[in-house]
């Protein structure tokens, strides 16, 4: 779980950073085409929005998959716990008794 969180955080940081670096480098790319200001601004907005949409979709997909997987695992664990009923408690009590006996 900790490892999963680490990977998610690393990818989030990496993608957000790559988005910002792309946006900063975009202006130089646009300038090399020598467009007028209005066209340049329009292209900048479109390209930045496109990049944002890609990064956001990737991140939402990644977090959604991870969250979904954790939810399913938790659900299965919960089902098992309900099916086993009080077995777990009985086992724990038995162990405690054994332990007390040896003391």
């Amino acid at each position, binding site marked *: 779980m*900790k*490892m999963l969180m*680490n*990977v998610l955080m*690393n*990818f989030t*940081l*990496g*993608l957000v*950073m*790559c988005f910002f*670096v*792309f946006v*900063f*480098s*975009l*202006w*130089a*790319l*646009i300038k*090399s*085409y*020598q*467009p007028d200001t209005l*066209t*340049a601004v329009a*292209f900048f*907005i*479109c*390209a*930045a*929005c*496109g*990049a*944002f*949409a*890609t*990064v*956001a*979709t990737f991140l939402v997909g990644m977090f959604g998959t991870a969250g979904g997987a954790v*939810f399913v695992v*938790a*659900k299965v664990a*919960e089902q098992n*716990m309900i099916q086993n*009923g*009080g077995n777990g*408690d009985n086992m724990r009590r038995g162990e405690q008794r054994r332990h007390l006996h040896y003391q």
Partner: protein
Amino acid sequence: MQNGRQVARLPDTTTAINLVVNSTAKFAKNHKIISGSYLLGILVLLFGSGAQLTYDQQRTYENIIRTIDTDIEFEASSRYGNAYNAYYGSKGWFSCDSLCTRMKKKADEAKRELDGIRAEGFSRMSDAKASAGIFSEVGVNEARDSFWEYFNKGKKVSLGPAMEGVEGVCASSSTLTKTTFQFAKRQSMWDALFVGMRSMGRNESTGEYMVSEKDEHHACEALPITFVLLTRFARRR
């Protein structure tokens, strides 16, 4: 309630999906600029392929591109490399004698020549691009390639003159000081490398940790991961 204890129940799948959908809708309503930008971005991704070049535009673009002499730039770059190596070999740690000074002058001269040739190349490339236009397929593809370059190559981050994606002379430019690192992958690799080590006791050395019986299972988990990651890392290098 279960055996006298309060048990927190997870919501069922339908309720969870509804919760996610409702939260998303609420977020979209409350943050109109973010959701609007996202929708615009999706539309741009779906339909923004760039205007196709006309025959005249294509011909002008190619004619200008053809005037860029990459051989001259390559020769100037080699000359600068040789001159810089000669200067670097002749200089001391904190001193520069007469031979070194001469070599430095030659290296500086070669650098100026190279910069001039590159500036000329950039200028011609810029003219060629201007003839195509930023919203043409050339401009859109270049921006797209630039983005995917950052995105795919392990979240590559380039600092310095941002002239990425410029073909020809610009691509071979060695002066573009790039500080690249594969952030997410590398960071995750180091995390995976040290995840086993974190369970090591405070007063334990690495050797003790590796052979100690109580932590045998940790070492058994950590070692194969460490070995695999180190092998992979070495192979990449």
